[in-house]
């Protein structure tokens, strides 16, 4: 009964000062919406990274040629320390699930009058398994194609879109890569952009032997993808690869490695952690604005208590206890913050959709972010409503009745 009365009084008070109530709520609305938008953008970024980790292949180690930290893909032309035989030897290690060498080359593709430049990568069929990348038509080339250095190619979606007319099935057609004829045996399903915006579908896979002998005339490979059987075995596999390659490359105790093994999953996990920290940071900044909104609420509640000093005195005279008065003002602050909170949630949901559409960033509004900000706004209401409410309850009824505005 008393709660209903308090609610009625609170709503009446808010209605009596519409503009003031709205401006006070605006502080809460902006704060709550900001928290939701920041968290949903952060969630979007982190989900994208997670899906990229999955698309890279899980439990993945990359073996690069060259020493130390430095070598990246660009160095693969100049540092030629990894061979197909190294890859085969790594495949024989325990806890290794799959091994796929990669030899990158850029190539000019042509079909009929259409030409297109794409990444051409020599590899083995294991690549498809590691990347867990299904074909949408035809099939990936086989181990036999690798052994015979067959002139076959598997195309990414972007390549197909740029070489072939829409609706045609490229499987069985012959395209030219750097003027050499290749038969298309398969088309990969679409993967979209990688982290950093590279189009993963703008790729052509050919047998690694074909790339070595026919296209580039080399004996080395650019890098070796190694998939460990379990996440726990990755450190073990990494050290096994290191000692195996040192032995195979005849490196003695003091000689430095002419290769490097990198755990790309952990790199991406670091990226994910960074995103999480950024999200936390942005959400904290947003939470500060919610705090400012709360202070605005407290300010208005204090004004409201002063304005209604006589009312408080009268209520006390007719029998309101201190806790009756305190609850009345607490409910008022809470109603203010909860209405602001609900409006803020709506603005936040709409806002993150709009930002996501406008900038092409993925955004996920999660239930937890909604609950978090709703709970936070209620907490702000209670926290910042408490002091004014206590002040109202502590008024002396005689003084309050005598109060002149």
């Amino acid at each position, binding site marked *: 009964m008393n709660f209903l009365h308090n609610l009625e009084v609170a709503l009446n*008070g808010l209605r009596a000062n519409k503009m003031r109530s709205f401006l006070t709520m605006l502080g809460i609305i902006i704060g709550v919406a900001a928290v939701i938008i920041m968290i949903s953008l952060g969630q979007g970024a982190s989900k994208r990274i997670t899906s990229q980790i999955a698309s890279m292949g899980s439990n993945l180690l990359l073996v690069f040629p060259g020493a130390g930290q430095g070598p990246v893909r660009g160095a693969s032309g100049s540092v030629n320390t990894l061979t197909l035989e190294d890859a085969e030897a790594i495949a024989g290690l325990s806890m290794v699930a799959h091994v796929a060498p990669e030899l990158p080359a850029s190539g000019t593709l042509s079909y009929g009058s259409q030409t297109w430049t794409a990444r051409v990568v020599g590899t083995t069929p294991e690549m498809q398994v590691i990347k867990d990348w299904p074909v949408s038509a035809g099939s990936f080339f086989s181990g036999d194609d690798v052994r015979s250095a067959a002139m076959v190619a598997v195309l990414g979606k972007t390549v197909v879109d740029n070489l072939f007319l829409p609706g045609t099935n490229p499987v069985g057609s012959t395209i030219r890569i750097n003027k050499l004829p290749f038969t298309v045996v398969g088309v990969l399903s679409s993967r979209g952009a990688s982290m950093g915006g590279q189009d993963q579908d703008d790729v052509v896979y050919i047998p690694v032997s074909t790339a070595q002998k026919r296209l580039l005339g080399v004996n080395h490979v650019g890098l070796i993808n190694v998939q460990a059987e379990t996440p726990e075995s990755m450190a073990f596999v990494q050290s096994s690869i290191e000692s195996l390659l040192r032995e195979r490359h005849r490196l003695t105790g003091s000689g430095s490695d002419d290769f490097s093994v990198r755990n790309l999953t952990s790199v991406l996990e670091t990226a994910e952690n960074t995103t999480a920290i950024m999200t936390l940071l942005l959400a904290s900044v947003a939470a500060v604005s919610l705090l400012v909104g709360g202070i605005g609420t407290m300010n208005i509640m204090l004004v409201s208590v002063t304005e209604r000093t006589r009312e408080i005195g009268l209520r006390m*005279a*007719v*029998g*309101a*206890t201190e806790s009756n008065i305190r609850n009345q003002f607490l409910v008022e602050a809470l109603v203010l913050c909860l209405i602001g909170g609900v409006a803020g949630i709506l603005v936040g949901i709409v806002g993150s959709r709009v930002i996501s559409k406008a900038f092409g960033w993925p955004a996920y509004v999660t239930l937890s972010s909604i609950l978090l900000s709703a709970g936070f706004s209620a907490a702000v209401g209670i926290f910042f409503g408490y002091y004014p409410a206590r002040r109202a309850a502590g008024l002396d009824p005689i003084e309050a009745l005598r109060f002149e505005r």
Partner: protein
Amino acid sequence: MAGKPAIVLENITKIYHMGETRVIALKGINLTVQEGEMVAVMGPSGSGKSTLLNILGCLDRPTGGTYYLGGEDVSRLNKNQLALIRNKRIGFVFQSFNLLGRFPVLANVQLPLVYAGVGKKEMVERAKEALDWVGMSRYAHHYPGQLSGGQQQRVAIARALVNDPSIILADEPTGALDSRTSIEIISVIQRLNMEKGITVVMVTHEKDIALYCRRLVNMRDGCILSDAPVENPGNASDDLAAIPEEMGVPA
């Protein structure tokens, strides 16, 4: 005038501390008011009459002495207990009405019942009854700002009696009203006293208003100067009939 005492004050003192200075507002007041009495308290400002009324109304506690309200010692109760006493047994009427402008008349009259925890239906019923009694039932849904001073004071009286109090304390109830309206309000308070048997203690500084009460207490410097029955107290409704109707103020 026989009956049980409604109010017994024994050697009541009240001392205020204002920084360094001590102000002795009441210097040992002894006063007994029987049930059904109608007492006027007069005195210049600073005589302690407001302090006395605050203590009688349980808005304030005496520094010393004992206050029995309906036989119960209320001088040492805590704030919550005092709030309960005010809610159940005391009705207040103020000079400035103290109606809540944001709420309609009916809600204003209901206010004491809200804190008594009365159910919604009974609350409305009793508030309407009280409004009816002061002749204001057709204004139930008006706002105080739409009413004249006399009408507002009637509403305030309805609020004071809605909880069936045993005493009503009126602090200059006619102080803000013209003389005809003053007599109207006094007639309502007299009816309250006679028909409902509610004990009334009224502070006023208008002698002619005080003479409508049956007993007159004069105060000065925190003491009771004189305390005597009023001979031939006035009857407000008779007097009202004698005054020509002016602007058609509703009776």
